């Protein structure tokens, strides 16, 4: 896949405030790319920079090989779906969708067909004559999508497009957006602060913190091999333990507080890991509580149930283990015949070297 958008050393200042710090980023042709990060980290700023609504303070931005310096938003091959959708309330649905075709030399009938096609694509066939301000949230969003996609942009930019919808609608639209992206084959750049949404929808995710990109990877790598504590704690749940690297070789020897010594494969540690203190991350689902009579060939440590949170399909246990600072969170599927333990129950916890992630700091 070729690179469609290239940012090199992009910085953005608002007065003294450094909103984007030295962003280097390559976004590929046809991928579903997400910008993920906590509120205020600069996701919207980065998106608006690509759209042409914000000037960069330094650095360069190329889209499809063209330098975008001095190219205003209306001349960029990008279209945007705004967080508020920005549906023009004085126009009908059809006129909204046709808005971008004003400078198009095609005839009236042909434009009308294009509008109807675009509306059908987002599941709003026949809605062209409706008043725009009488639409529901989900319908507005679809109109905004149709309005942007009718111009066949190279990139579609979406700023938190699902945040205004309720949970059910949001999940439905996630699937629809993915389907739509596959159908039109356009590069989508999605801004979101919802890590689950990003994991579900994206081909690749850039996790941003305070104007920087913390990690850029596909969802699985991001989840299994976060490269820093902040990425690890932002994405999913992660237990952190104290540890000390004693020897670095083909395997890395670690002394994990409360769990004991073990050797982990080198790819589970950051490049250039050296003997010394490190944090050890363990995902809740890679730990297991051993119920009565269960055995395992994995390592086992004893503990006591400190907290139980029952979710129906899952139960989350916090288990206190001697030598571990904070109780470890463990998620267990509620399989048939498996009891839900009470607080205070003594139990055994199975763990595995292969699920440890070594993190700096």
């Amino acid at each position, binding site marked *: 896949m070729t690179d469609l958008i290239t940012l090199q050393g992009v910085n953005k200042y608002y007065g003294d405030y450094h909103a984007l710090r030295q962003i280097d980023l390559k976004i590929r042709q046809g991928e579903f790319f997400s910008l993920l990060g906590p509120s205020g980290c600069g996701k919207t700023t980065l998106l608006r920079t690509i759209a042409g*609504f914000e000037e960069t303070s330094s650095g360069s931005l190329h889209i499809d090989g063209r330098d975008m310096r001095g190219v205003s938003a209306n001349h960029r091959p990008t279209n*945007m779906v705004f967080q508020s959708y*920005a549906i023009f309330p*004085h126009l009908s649905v059809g006129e909204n969708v046709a808005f*971008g075709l*004003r*400078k198009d030399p095609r005839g009236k009938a042909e434009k009308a067909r294009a509008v109807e096609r675009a509306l059908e694509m987002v599941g709003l066939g026949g809605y062209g004559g409706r008043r725009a*301000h009488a639409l529901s949230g989900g319908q507005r969003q679809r109109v905004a999508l149709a309005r942007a996609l009718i111009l066949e942009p190279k990139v579609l930019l979406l700023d938190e497009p699902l945040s205004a919808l309720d949970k059910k609608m949001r999940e439905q639209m996630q699937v629809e957006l993915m389907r739509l992206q596959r159908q039109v084959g356009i590069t989508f750049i999605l801004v979101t602060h919802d890590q689950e949404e990003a994991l579900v929808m994206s081909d690749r995710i850039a996790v941003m913190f305070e104007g920087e990109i913390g990690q850029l990877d596909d969802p699985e790598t991001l989840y299994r091999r976060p490269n820093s504590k902040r990425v690890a704690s932002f994405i999913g749940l992660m237990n952190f333990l104290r540890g000390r690297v004693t020897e670095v070789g083909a395997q890395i020897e670690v002394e994990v507080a409360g769990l004991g010594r073990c050797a982990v494969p080198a790819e589970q540690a950051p490049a250039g890991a050296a003997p010394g203190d490190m944090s050890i991350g363990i995902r809740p689902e890679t730990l297991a509580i051993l119920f009565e009579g269960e055995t395992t060939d994995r390592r086992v440590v004893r503990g006591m149930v400190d907290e139980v949170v029952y979710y129906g399909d899952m139960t989350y246990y916090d288990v206190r283990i001697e030598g571990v600072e904070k109780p470890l969170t463990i998620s267990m599927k509620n399989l048939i015949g498996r009891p839900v333990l009470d607080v205070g129950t003594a139990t055994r916890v199975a763990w595995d070297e292969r699920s440890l992630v070594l993190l700096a700091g």
Partner: protein
Amino acid sequence: MSLRIYAIAYLIFLYAPIVLLPIFAFNDGSIIAFPLQGFTTQWFGELATTAALHEAVGNSLTIAVVSALLATCLGMCAARAGTMAEFPGKRGITGFIMLPLVLPEIIVAVSLLVVVVRVMGLSLGNWTIILAHTLICTPFCIAILNGAFQNLDRSMEEAAMDLGQSRWGAFRLVTLPLVAPGIVSSLLISFTISLDEFIIAFFLSGNSPTMPVYIWGLLRFPDKLPVVMALGTILVALSILLLTLAEIMRRRGLARAGLKDTGGFL
């Protein structure tokens, strides 16, 4: 109970003089006193044949139209800058622009008189009144248009630009239609303010007066009083009509943008 009596007394005090206008405008007698003498349209007829009045009305209309246009243009610039842009000193500047709202008109009148006649050595005329009326109308226009622009989602214009329009195209195709009711409302209100403004017009008119100044001149002749009443009746009717129109436009603007009413002038 006592509150209701107070309210009724207040309303009588407020509107009785205005109600008297049409009563005596149609009264067949040149003395303004009860009992009424009978019905006539003679005074309105007299209005139609007074050339000096026509000239005064002409002056007033010209001044009102031009000041309304100027004030609304200025108001639009200020409102747009005030609600959609950020710049240093914004609060202070907005404060100063709104100041004429509470500045006594006589101060505006006297200071302009001094500047135009003494400092610049120019002669008075309709243009001096237009200048002063624009000054006093602009804050009203800003207040009305601020409402219109504040209700406007900032991303509307950006969306239009994103869809291929230039800055001006986005303004013309999206912003303007959305604030149009506010603009009409602003034009009507500043027109009304200018039309019946007296003090400034009195100080700054040249040798051809505006209508309120002309009416004031008529008052010195007691037998002309019913004519003044007739003229006043027309003016009241016109003012009510214009203000109602302005309010209708404002509400329609809110409805069009799908917004709730947050108060206005009426």
